[in-house]
């Protein structure tokens, strides 16, 4: 029964307010249930794996998990001094390594530490079950470790182990920015090894160039498409889409045939007499090759949003502008162009974001000065297995894209982007 203080009641006798809220809640739950599969799918197959991958950029639990006693014993050792650790550390190391070699985990730790200092990989591989089994436990252990490899008693080895014994590390991010931690603080790596900052800058510059090229080439095409009668426009649209139906590798290889020094374009130019035979243009295996091939591959992503936005711009505006005395250029620049900006925004964002993560095409046609940061990410994922560094590089790349997105939102406004 309802109380008398509630003046308005619904048909079932409940207060109207509560009844309404319940109905709304039911609707919300139903809506949520409807999207739940999708939400779950996205969370499980997209956000969790990506988050997991990005977390690897700081994860360093392997050292503490593999040799916990050694890490504990090392706390009492002064890494700034010039004496190697004492017998207690070697006893702890022996106990840890017995377990680690039994589980075949010692070589993994060696690979991990080898990223920090060359030689750790073979040091841990050598210190295997067989060698440890021959240890005489009554004797001091340090010299017996030294027998396996003299690196076991060097300061450098123990400094590397101690400085990497925290379960969380900033080392991968430092390496990704061509920096390294030393006992005296963070300093840049030598010029002979610096590579990532250069590659990030280059990736940005080339991606912007590719986006600009796509805009310059795509805008007139989109304009023609939008202003042709729909029959012929559809024909042309198929031509724009045609590259999508050809394998990426085939398209990239086709550019090789065209652009190489003994290729079609150079042959033609030599034959016409524009070029001397011994002075052929180098258009591939360099940044030019990357820009040309990627502009071609990404062009449809610029044309399509431009086309769909231009389709919605009524031709009467241009006619009105001209009838009011505007020249062709003024009519275009003051009336037509501003209306097409949302399409440019959408196209540019699509092309730029796709370009920044490309690696197959730059690898094949980029030579040495046309490769991207993604080529190094790929190398560390697939070859060197340094997934921590790959994750750090990818995180930085993601942060850069998000920062650019934020700048774009401030300058142009993200509401101003239209896909159609």
């Amino acid at each position, binding site marked *: 029964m309802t109380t008398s203080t509630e003046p308005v009641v619904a048909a079932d006798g409940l207060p109207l307010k509560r009844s309404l809220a319940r109905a709304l809640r039911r609707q919300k739950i139903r809506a949520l249930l409807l999207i739940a599969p999708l939400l779950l799918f996205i969370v499980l197959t997209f956000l969790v794996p990506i988050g997991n991958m990005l977390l690897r950029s700081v994860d360093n639990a392997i050292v503490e998990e593999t040799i916990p006693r050694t890490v504990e014993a090392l706390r009492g050792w002064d890494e700034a001094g010039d004496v190697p650790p004492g017998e207690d550390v070697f006893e702890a190391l022996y106990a840890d390594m017995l377990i680690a070699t039994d589980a*075949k*985990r010692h*070589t*993994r730790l*060696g*690979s991990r530490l*080898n*990223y920090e200092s*060359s*030689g*750790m*990989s*073979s040091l841990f*591989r050598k210190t295997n079950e067989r060698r440890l089994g021959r240890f005489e436990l009554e004797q001091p252990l340090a010299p017996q470790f030294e027998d396996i490899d003299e690196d076991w008693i060097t300061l450098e080895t123990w400094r590397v182990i101690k400085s990497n014994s925290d379960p969380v590390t900033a080392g991968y991010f430092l390496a990704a920015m061509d920096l390294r931690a030393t006992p005296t603080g963070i300093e840049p790596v030598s*010029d*002979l*090894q*610096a*590579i990532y900052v*250069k*590659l990030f800058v280059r990736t940005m510059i080339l991606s912007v160039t590719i986006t600009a090229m796509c805009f310059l080439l795509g805008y007139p095409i989109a304009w023609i498409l939008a202003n042709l009668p729909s029959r012929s426009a559809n024909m042309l649209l198929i031509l724009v889409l045609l590259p999508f139906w050809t394998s990426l590798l085939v398209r990239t290889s086709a550019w*090789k045939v065209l652009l*190489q*020094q*003994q*290729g079609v374009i150079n042959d033609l130019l030599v034959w016409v007499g524009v070029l001397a035979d011994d002075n052929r243009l180098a258009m591939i*295996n360099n940044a030019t090759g990357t820009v040309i091939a990627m502009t071609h591959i990404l062009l449809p992503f610029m044309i399509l949003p431009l086309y769909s936005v231009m389709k919605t711009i009524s031709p009467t505006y241009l006619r009105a502008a001209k009838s009011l005395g505007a020249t062709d250029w003024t009519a275009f620049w003051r009336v037509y162009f501003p209306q097409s900006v949302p399409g440019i925004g959408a196209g540019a964002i699509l092309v730029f974001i796709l370009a920044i993560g490309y690696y197959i095409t730059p*690898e*094949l046609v980029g*030579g*040495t*000065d046309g490769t991207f940061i993604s080529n*190094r990410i790929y*190398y560390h*994922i*697939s*070859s*060197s*297995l*340094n*997934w921590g560094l790959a994750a750090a590089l990818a995180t930085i790349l993601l942060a850069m894209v998000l920062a650019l997105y934020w700048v774009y939102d401030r300058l142009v406004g993200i509401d101003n982007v239209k896909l159609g």
Partner: protein
Amino acid sequence: MKLKTMMIGATSALALTGAAHADGHMADSMTVVSWGGAYQTSQQKAYSEPYAEENGVEFTWDESSGEAVARLRAMSEADNITWDLVDVVAADAMRLCDEGIAMEIDHDELLAPGDDGSSASEDFGDLIVSNCFIPQIVYSTTFGYRTDVAEWGGAEPTSVCDVWDMEAFPGQRALEKRPIGNVEWALICDGVAYEDVYDLLETPEGVARALAKLDEIKDDTVWWSAGAETPQLLADGEIVIGSTYNGRLFSVIEEQQQPVGMLWDYQMFDLDGWIVPAGLPEDRLARTLDFLRYATDTQRLADQAKYIAYGPARASSAPLVSTHAELGIDMAPHMPTDPANSVNTFLFNYEWWADNRDDIDAQFQSWLLQ
């Protein structure tokens, strides 16, 4: 890319060749991972087709060896290994072994003894570079050159150092976009003795010296990352001399009849072979080991050389190498291990590269960017 080849052999109940496991416990299908192309075909013809015929096993081939290391690690972390046998180069096998992703193998227990009576570990000898690695072929990275370059005036390169000789042999070169191989050749041609190369490379001066030597030809070099690139560049006349795998050069020269010659001087020996992923279920492991024993015996390794110009890893297979299955030419002179070809060879120091690869690769890539 996944190539699925179904080869359900006749279910003839032939006795298993030296099987150590009862037939009832073996899986009746296998997923084998290799490199695709002519190499994988040679493995199918020499190993899996005859095996399928005898045992009625269904083979699925996956052309993923190029990214096998990363994929296996991901599979192992997800605890869902879908591959049974994986073809990798020795350096990758070492990496997978260190990571605990590849199974350690007792070569003498699991592999057939050689036809000449030697035990498996004697027969493979030094080529067993890791406890997880079962060697299959010896291949080499070496140079091919065009034989019709007008500017060379009929001369042909005879030494690996001719690659650096821009006076006598002008034209574009092709080298692999990684330090392994290139830095060793550079030091050899800079006058360093063979046995000092790795000691020197361990010092910063050694690396600097190798890169300085490479600097001499840097502007005239195309850097490749896929083995198919050099043959294409040679065939198109884009380059005049370039490094690639000897089997690729064999097919350019003998199968496609291009005007290309082969330079064996200081060919860089490398190994390719099998690893078994760690943690396979019992029935699949039993099948894999049974196939492995069959596919790596003396005769099978020699058979593979009928289809591709790579040398069998067993010493006992060498005398059995015969003629090419289609071309009918004698294959022995095309083997990297042939005495005439291996006057000067370079043996990779795998252990050394496993330690120093990341470091030197960083310097090499940084040098490429300059």
